[in-house]
């Protein structure tokens, strides 16, 4: 097994305050990893770091030969302007950006792939609908179709099943399983502990610091979950610089809590 992602004493955060603190570990290629933790645990921050939207305060992320921009990323709250006059087909077609770039045409092969992706998420017949007319679940299906087209080796999903019904989340999880079967690396942030136990082989329990990481059954123990819940959510405005930071190479020392 090779590593898709490696975290080396990684600290991510905002304005010197860490949101993910001293994370070390490896995500193997083809792994299906659930990232679990209370609100404010740093799940979204970790994902933003992985796709390169924020820079580490200290430590680093090694992405092997996969550039950050080749990682497919579904943010928790997509900043989509739903009033924009664009239809489902064009929106899904954006997933081909890496193939088409600025000027590349959409040829017959690409068109059939777009149609397949739309069919795979069950939105056939919605191609010409303006995105403003979609329901929340249909919107999420459309975004998954776009992810399908991105054809990425590493896929990062930030709470993809929030606010969608059971049917939709089951359909969309089938796609995640398919990606897993295709040896793609998938990281998913979730809150549904039972769902994680049933479906994810590997779990990272995060509470700013990593609480536990490994096989799901050994990670999601009552003790670990309690420990994660006790985590203090608030930043300390007057935190001292983190002592552990002196051991790592960092341009700006981040604060301790």
């Amino acid at each position, binding site marked *: 097994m090779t590593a898709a992602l490696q975290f080396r004493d990684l600290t991510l955060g905002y304005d010197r305050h860490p949101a993910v603190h001293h994370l070390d570990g490896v995500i193997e290629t083809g792994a299906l990893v659930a990232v679990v933790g209370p609100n404010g645990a740093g799940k979204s921050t970790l994902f933003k770091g992985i796709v390169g939207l924020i820079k580490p305060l200290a430590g680093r992320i090694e992405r092997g030969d996969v550039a950050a921009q080749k990682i497919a990323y579904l*943010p928790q709250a997509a900043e989509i*302007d739903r009033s924009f*006059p*664009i239809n489902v087909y064009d929106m899904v077609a954006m997933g081909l950006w890496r193939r088409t770039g600025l000027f590349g045409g959409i040829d017959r092969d690409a068109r059939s792939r777009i149609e397949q992706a739309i069919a795979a998420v069950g939105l056939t017949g919605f191609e010409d609908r303006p995105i403003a007319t979609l329901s929340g679940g249909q919107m999420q299906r459309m975004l998954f179709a776009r992810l399908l087209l991105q054809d990425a080796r590493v896929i990062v999903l930030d709470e993809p099943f929030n606010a969608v019904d059971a049917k939709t989340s089951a359909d969309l999880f089938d796609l995640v399983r398919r990606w897993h079967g295709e040896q793609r690396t998938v990281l998913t942030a979730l809150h549904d502990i039972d769902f994680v136990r049933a479906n994810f082989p590997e779990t990272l329990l995060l509470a700013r610091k990593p609480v536990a990481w490994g096989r799901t059954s050994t990670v999601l123990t009552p003790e670990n979950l309690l420990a994660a819940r006790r985590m203090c959510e608030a930043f300390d405005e007057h935190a001292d610089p983190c002592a552990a930071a002196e051991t790592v190479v960092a341009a700006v020392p981040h604060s301790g809590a």
Partner: protein
Amino acid sequence: MYPAPAENSSEPPFSADLTGTRGNDGERRIQVSMFNDLFIAPFSEFEFMRRALAGALALALGAGPIGVFLMLRRMSLVGDAMAHAILPGAAVGFLLSGLSLFAMTAGGLIAGFVVALLTGFVARTTELKEDAALATFYLLSLALGVTIISLKGTNIDLLHVLFGNVLALDDQTLLLVAVNATITLVVLALIYRPLVIECVDPGFMRSVSSAGGPAHFAFLVLVVVNLVSGFHALGTLLAVGIMMLPAAIGRFWARDVTLMVLIATASGAAAGYAGLLLSFHTGVASGPAIILVAGALYLVSLLFGRVGGLVRQAFPGRHLEA
């Protein structure tokens, strides 16, 4: 629309004769010449009107799509602010070399770019958001511009800068407007894809490519370029009008960007043509006349537009089966 004169004398039975004098050739000739006097002769007989029309059409061609994207990015008033921002540059150009096309254009471009860059810099590096940053710089720029003009120059000069003069376009200015329209269309074609994606889903754009930022900046440059075009014809105060009114008209008739751009461009061109005629026949200032015609088209769209027009909203018809 006047019915086209029939080639032969046999009258088609369905032809609607507006005057009710069916088959009266003399009457028809009078109508033809009235039509000609009203709608064609001003342009065929006067060169300055032809120039004005060419300028107005070129202006509409560039300003239409730019306006649509400004509107879709919720930057409708940014154009207005930028139009004020180019004033001191144009004024300095005017001070240095009078009503020189080159000096005023270069000055306007420089002032516009400086304000755009400063705004972008402050918005990205401080707590101030883009709108607040732009407000501070364009107001400073405007104050500076008016100060410079009032130092030298008369009220007539000020009027020229503020309201332009589409009826006095010389060769150089006409060429400038045409070149700017061409640049606009070519650059828009180049940045179209990232511009649309950046508009609808900026997060996605950031995660797949770093082309979003440069595309946005190129777009801001196009805004300034078109404002500089517009300000020679319509003045700094009304240059935004030929961008934003057609864009708003397009929004009432189209559900996709392409059609919106086409409608905006067409209504901008129609407003240019009709505005010039209005100005010619009534003697009102040409710049405001163009914008007022665009305003009338906007009002009609607001009331009767297919997409969200007021009448349509008031009488939506019975709801559908599914």
